[in-house]
């Protein structure tokens, strides 16, 4: 019954086996996958129930269905260049970038319902600063405005301990009001600040895809490395999953939450620029829909509403799924309210699905 000495002189905590017991101790090291098939099985096992896998399969089914419909019937032009470039590669990236911002914040255990209002404010900032000083300054100003708004929200939530739901709901009204205060109710128009380089960079048309898609891929890759491979990303999961455990291991939850708010703000700033350059205008109060759409995309992609769980790939797939089905409804000439019916339904279904899958994760 005494601790065994190993070669390194390190004491080892091992319970003695009963004498005579025919027990083969199976070590963790023996369980490591060796062949490619085993590694694949291992990968599937630990990807199950974490969001992206299930929803990715649903997206694949929807896309295959739409492609077949498109080939079979000219009345459903899903695969036309006009649809792929003009609709899909413009609408998915903006929502995906917003979903990544919201998703990271949700993993940290917080929300920001002022997202739509913040898009309005930073778009107006972008348009006015671009018109007066050139679009380079406009880009900086838009990102700074959105990040600043998010950090103010973050500080309110972290310092006062008010649930972020309520705090940011209030701030949503404030920033919509602030947009009207600096701009008036008429749309702000991007005229003097607009040139060819700006359009190519943020809304360039390359046949079957647009610049926005490149931005989504770049943001997605950087965000993936940050969230899933960087230690700060690990801290975000830790704080959202169990803040008191994180604190006990000397991670500061306040700093991590503020960092998440700042990243969220930067994503909102980038999305604002993409929206403003595409439409060349922005009317205060017209962007509120983005708030719930972005949260819906994150939830559909497997991000937990309670924090601590979510993947970048899931957020992108969630945004793609919502936008592609929306596109299919429009191409199929469904009435406009179908889209609202669908988005409302998918949020609830995805949340229920997430809850069921959470128990399946191993």
């Amino acid at each position, binding site marked *: *019954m*005494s*601790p065994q000495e*190993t070669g390194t002189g390190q*004491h*080892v*905590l*091992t*319970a*003695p086996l009963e004498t005579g017991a025919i027990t083969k*101790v199976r*070590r*963790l*090291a023996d*369980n*490591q996958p060796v062949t490619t098939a085993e590694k694949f099985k*291992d990968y599937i096992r*630990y990807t199950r129930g974490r969001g992206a896998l299930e929803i990715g399969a649903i997206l694949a089914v929807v896309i295959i269905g739409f492609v077949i419909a498109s080939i079979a019937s000219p009345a459903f032009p899903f695969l036309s260049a006009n649809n792929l470039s003009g609709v899909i590669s413009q609408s998915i990236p903006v929502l995906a970038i917003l979903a990544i911002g919201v998703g990271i914040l949700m993993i940290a255990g917080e929300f920001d319902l002022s997202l739509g209002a913040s898009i309005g404010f930073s778009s107006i900032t972008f348009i006015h600063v671009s018109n007066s000083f050139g679009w380079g300054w406009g880009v900086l100003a838009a990102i700074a405005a959105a990040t600043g708004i998010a950090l103010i929200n973050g500080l309110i939530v972290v310092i006062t301990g008010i649930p972020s739901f309520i705090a940011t709901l209030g701030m949503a009204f404030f920033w919509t009001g602030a947009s009207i205060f600096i701009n008036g109710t008429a749309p702000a128009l991007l005229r003097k600040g607009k040139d060819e380089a700006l359009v190519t960079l943020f809304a360039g048309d390359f046949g079957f895809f647009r610049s926005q898609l490149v931005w989504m891929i770049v943001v997605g890759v950087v965000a993936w*490395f940050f969230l899933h*491979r*960087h*230690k*700060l990303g*690990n*801290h975000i*999961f*830790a704080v*959202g*999953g*169990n803040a*008191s*455990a*994180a*604190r*006990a*291991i*000397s*991670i500061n939850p306040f700093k991590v939450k503020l960092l998440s708010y700042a990243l969220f703000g930067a994503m909102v700033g980038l999305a604002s620029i993409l929206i403003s350059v595409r439409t060349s205008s922005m009317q205060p109060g017209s962007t509120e829909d983005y708030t719930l759409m972005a949260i819906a995309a994150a939830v559909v992609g497997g991000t*937990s509403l309670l924090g*601590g*769980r979510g993947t970048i790939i899931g957020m992108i797939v969630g945004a793609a799924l919502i936008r592609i089905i929306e596109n299919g409804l429009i191409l199929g000439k469904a009435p406009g309210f179908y889209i609202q019916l669908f988005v409302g339904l998918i949020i609830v279904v995805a949340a229920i699905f997430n809850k069921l899958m*959470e128990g399946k*994760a*191993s």
Partner: protein
Amino acid sequence: MTINEDYLLRIEGITKKYGVNTVLDDVSFDIGKGEVVGLLGDNGAGKSTLVKIMSGVVAATAGDFSWDGTKHPHVNRALTESLGIETIFQDSALVPQMSISRNIFMGREITNRLGLMKIKEMDAITSEILDSVVTIEGIKSSKQLVSSLSGGQAQAVAIARAVHFKRSLLILDEPTSALAVRATEALLDYLRALKADGISSVLVTHNLHHAFEVCDRHIVMNHGRKILDVRREDTSVEELTAAVVEGELGIRRYRENATAA
């Protein structure tokens, strides 16, 4: 009180108040180098708060914290971590949605210069710790989520983490509450082995027999105050039981009975 000039950790006059509630009242003691100290007491005696203060997770309202002869006015987790103190918390302080490996290295990730984690290395070390340090059945992979583990398995992960990072003092807050008998025996043996390496430990437990078996010294808390601080050879399980259950009155009655006999 034991005077030990060769102490590792000394706390003096530790008081903790939550509003009008005094949870700890003027608690002082030393922990010697290589000493195994049992911290005993009934529910609400203040043991867990004391553990959190010694771990640097909660700040005391008043009192001094000295380490190896140096007084530290500001005690936080960063300081205690640099001193080599590791704690196994009663609630195990794990994140259920994260894998075993990420829980073990939470906040202390092995990274390259850019801060990107070396996942393979962390997984390999995790398998090694779980294989060699705590023997627990049924854990399949270091990638498994903690939410999919049983209570005992999760506790084993918490123990493995503390054991892996400890360098000078290991604090165990009710570590055996979810462990099977065999794993408990192994843990108690491990504390004896640590002592041989000069590593101190503080064992908080309800189980007086466990404590008596392994600890060199026993500190009994009652309603936030220290009521007994006694070496193993000067006490008995009966006296400790009386102290835990009945407080100072129990100690007095036990000693009167002992003298009468």
